[in-house]
């Protein structure tokens, strides 16, 4: 069974069609990188998978659940790290993790939270409010959330933005750990070189259509 099965998916805003008849499947235990120019609809496609937007047509099934009709079931298995980071500015890093995981039905010991913060290199800033964090630190905290949540499906929108080399390594480690657990990662990125090191499958979304890349093509696309 595919982890994600997208069939004839289309999205339009009024008369403006972003993409149409997009069909692909992603297998469990893989990392799927979605490339494409600005405005091609990569983030929109990712947001549809995250159940944040409804497609204009077609179907997407996530681990056997319909992404539109069975939203709540899909939401319990995914975690989306978006541009917005989904962090509360007035809460500390630890409090943000506590709140985020509580709303996923997870209750964790302080030691577990500390370990995740240490793993992402921000262990010393656990009690600092998020409004004092840099963009890179916020991104690392979002990664800590994913480490603790251990989702079956991890959606990453431009995961390497704002991260230094250490942050990139932590991101790649998280992706690898997710794949090892049998989970699936879908990412959108412009950073083809960084994606090449970790992605196992890929596609280019351009002019409203998707072109799937074989492993060889994925490497060729990256190198070009």
């Amino acid at each position: 069974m595919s982890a994600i099965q997208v069939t004839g998916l289309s999205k339009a805003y009024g008369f403006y069609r972003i993409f149409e008849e997009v069909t692909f499947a992603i297998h469990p235990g893989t990392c799927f990188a979605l490339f494409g120019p600005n405005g091609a609809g990569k983030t929109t496609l990712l947001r549809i998978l995250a159940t944040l937007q409804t497609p204009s047509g077609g179907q997407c099934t996530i681990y056997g659940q319909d992404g539109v009709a069975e939203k709540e079931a899909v939401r319990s298995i995914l975690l989306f790290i978006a541009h917005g980071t989904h962090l509360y500015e007035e809460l500390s890093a630890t409090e943000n993790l506590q709140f985020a995981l509580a709303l996923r039905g997870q209750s964790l010991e302080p030691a577990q939270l500390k370990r995740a913060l240490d793993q992402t290199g921000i262990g010393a800033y656990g009690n600092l409010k998020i409004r004092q964090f840099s963009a890179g630190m916020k991104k690392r905290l979002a990664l800590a959330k994913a480490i603790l949540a251990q989702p079956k499906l991890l959606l990453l929108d431009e995961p390497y933005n704002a991260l230094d080399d250490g942050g990139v390594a932590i991101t790649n480690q998280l992706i690898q750990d997710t794949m090892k657990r049998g989970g699936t990662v879908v990412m959108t990125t412009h950073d083809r070189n960084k994606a090449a090191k970790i992605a196992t499958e890929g596609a280019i979304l351009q002019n409203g259509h998707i072109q799937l890349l074989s492993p060889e093509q994925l490497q060729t696309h990256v190198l070009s």
Partner: protein
Amino acid sequence: MSFLNTIYWVVWKDLISEWRTRETISSMLFFALIVILVFSFSFAMDQDAARQLIAGIIWVAFTFTGIIGIGKSFTSELQNDCIEFLQMSPVPKGAIYLGKVTANFLFMFAVEILLFPLFVIFFNLEVVDSVGMLLLVFFLATLGLAAVGTLFSALTVQIRAREVMLPVLLLPLAVPVIIAAVEATRGILNGDPYNFYSQWLHLLLIFDIIFTVVSFWLFEFILDS
């Protein structure tokens, strides 16, 4: 358990954030103080007229102060797209709604408790025997306003003109609560017997139940739209 936990964590998050910024409470208090001062000076020469109108003045202050607090309830979720996080959380959305209602109610009720002594002082009210009943009216009316206001705050949060749209949409629906609150407050302050104003308390209770149940049910659709 997960339902109650979600309510607890949403209230916890809103109270901690507010305690650290004091943004909502301070703007609510500042606005209410201005209202009290303006009305107090307007009726300085005619205390009898003031006593006739005091119930209305109290609820004008409480309602508009409440709208300021309710309006901020969901705008704080726009920062870092936190509203998406609430949307995607695999918990009953009704629990998020009840958590938000509870937090809004606590902010509004706290401000009302702080302001009421000022009304007593500025308008020479005699309330020693009726404080308990007045608090019951404040409790019921504030709950009704918080229940329907939280829903409209979520509905208007993504609209550009949300500061204008929230009172425009909320006030017509909240009119029954405001009228019932004014009538009950007037009856209590006039020293009327309980059965003279009890129907207004019943009306408040009925509206609280209707508003909470309907809003609880609608919230999921609004958050997801």
